[in-house]
């Protein structure tokens, strides 16, 4: 099963290498990994989607927690959360099919962000299902290039407020222990 991990890490050089190296070395399967700054400039957030059974995911979380630069690991798969991906799709768009493509774009509440003589670039955001759906809807026209960001996610409601509050408590550091 696919799990979504929210991982807060020190915003330092080399952290991504440590995390990626850990996954490679221990043979865990990363589906996607997205990383970026948070509201606290010294902390980055990684959203990692990883495939594995319960036991593997438990190990992944514990091993991540062992990295000194990792501040907090949460498996938010079962928590209500908002998960989003962004995709850019460059699709063949001869004049006679443009109308049809624009309809699809409308249905998915996506946007056209670039136009050339015979292609369009479409930008869409949404959860994985929606992104997969728009991709397959556009596929028949011929997708020339595509870039997906991988999922980013936040837990709904008040619970997510951990950055300042709980960081130094024993409980967060050993969360998965």
């Amino acid at each position, binding site marked *: 099963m696919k799990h979504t991990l929210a991982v807060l890490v*020190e915003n330092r050089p080399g952290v991504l290498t*440590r995390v990626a190296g850990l996954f490679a070395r221990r043979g865990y399967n990363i589906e996607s990994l997205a990383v970026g700054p948070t509201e606290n400039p010294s902390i980055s957030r990684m959203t990692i989607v990883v495939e594995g059974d319960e036991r593997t995911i438990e190990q992944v979380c514990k091993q991540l*927690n062992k990295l000194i630069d990792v501040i*907090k690991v949460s498996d938010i798969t079962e928590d209500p959360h908002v998960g989003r991906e962004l995709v850019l799709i460059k699709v063949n768009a001869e004049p006679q099919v443009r109308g049809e493509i624009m309809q699809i774009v409308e249905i998915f509440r996506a946007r056209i962000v670039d136009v050339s003589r015979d292609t369009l670039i479409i930008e869409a955001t949404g959860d994985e299902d929606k992104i997969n759906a728009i991709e397959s809807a556009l596929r028949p026209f011929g997708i020339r290039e595509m870039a997906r960001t991988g999922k980013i996610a936040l837990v709904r409601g008040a619970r997510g407020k951990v950055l300042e509050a709980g960081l130094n408590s024993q409980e967060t*550091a*050993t969360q*998965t222990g």
Partner: protein
Amino acid sequence: MARTGAQAVIEVLLQEGVEIVFGYPGGAVLPLYHALADSPIKHILVRHEQSAVHAASGYARASGKVGVCFATSGPGATNLVTGIATAYMDSIPVVVITGQVPTSMVGTDAFQEVDVTGITMPITKHNYLVKDVAELPRIVKEAFYIARTGRPGPVLIDLPRDVALSLCEEPIPSKVEIRGYKPTYKGHPGQIRALADLLLKSERPIIFVGGGVIASGAEDLLLKVAETLQAPVATTLPGLGAFPEDHPLSLGMVGLHGKPYANHAVMECDVLFGIGVRFDDRVTGALEKFAPQAKIAHVDIDPAEIGKNVRVDLPLVGDARTVLADLLPLLKPVKREAWLKRIKQLQEEFPLTYGRGGGDVRPQWVIQRLGEMTRGRAIITTDVGQHQMWAALYYGFTRPRTFISSCGLGTMGYGFPAAIGAKLARPEEMVWVITGDGSFQMGMAELGTAMEHELPIKILLFNNQSLAMVRQLQHFYYEAKYTAVHFHGNPDFVRLAEAYGAVGLRVTRQEEVIPALKEAMDNGRLTLIECLISEEEMVYPMVPVGAALNEMILPQD
């Protein structure tokens, strides 16, 4: 505070109580050596960087303090790799500082530049490339803290030459605060109560202890818990010494080459209380057949070890000493007749034996004599091979921090440099290296180091002119076709020792054993005893691949 980065490093070292650094210089690390020269810290110049880490690791294991070593950039740093991995696998606290090319040249493939933080990422607990001298005092302070707390391990600091030479105004922080690193020492009280319950209700418990008990200094509490519960105690290889082997409750080592009765006992116990162990494959035999009747309780300071290899019925994250201290008051004395009687039976039915084969000098016998003559109290370092297993099985360890061996990585060439570290840490103790002709040749250049510092280490070298442990594998698993395991061209080890100014003794017959051991014990000098033994010796027992612990191959006669 007008001091250089390098001087700041030395300042932290002094504050951390460092007395000895093992190392090997070169261009990029010279600022550090320059600052070291003005300090009271003693430097031990080894003959190969790998030995510097091994010696620091032996020092750490014998003393319980953090071992420290220096090396230069490039080849100096890469020569450290095996030593760092060895320390990592056995969770030994070592701080390694490497010189690096100046920051402006990092990433340009400069002369003697190598990405040592990249190389050592998977074999260090943590590592640093220092780019800003202002961060240096904090980093060095953190390195020591990380190395020795929680589950200990090696930490590496890569220090570019210009950073080491820059002015460092930053004071040494008084305390370390790392928000992503808060090891759990105290066990969950509810789980400790559950553990006490489980142990008190158990009819056939075994306490199974590993290196974690020694790392946390829990051996006295372990003894109390074992005696209160009247529970037999088995150990892993690095756990040797955590529980005195001359104690009636001692079972000794379990595992692939464990004591036969210990392996049987584990297969029969109803509660296996593992503490500071990681249930690795050398210990469990076939995982699915391991301890089939047992509820397993597992205490370890590293949450990732719990549930990693075996199914655990009672997980408990915490430091061995803290947990045992909290557990002890919850226990009450138990009378345990049936199980101890059964253990006695197992000891009689499946004793530790080595059969009749072999030559005139039997290594197992020699090690038993050494154990008697030193009353199980010497510090024993070993290399890797058959001799390592014989040392583990036949010496009879009675004190913690006296068995020093590369257990997790199985690194040949570890024993002698580790002995140098151990002897410097504990000069009042007798230090013996139990080694083989193969392994010794990977570290023997350190004879020079030991002579230079007048370290009267005793080397017991079993010469079978072969890599006999590998030969044993070929014997059992590769149709007894012996390839690449025979040495033609071994040196005369006695004369080799003499060439360095050490004492060399050769033993070819059994009656020469005790006089040679005695001479070595009494002469106060660096001494090498070469014992000629047969390459046909086998390490028994041996659990074949895929078999359960109680399905051992034992000697036939």
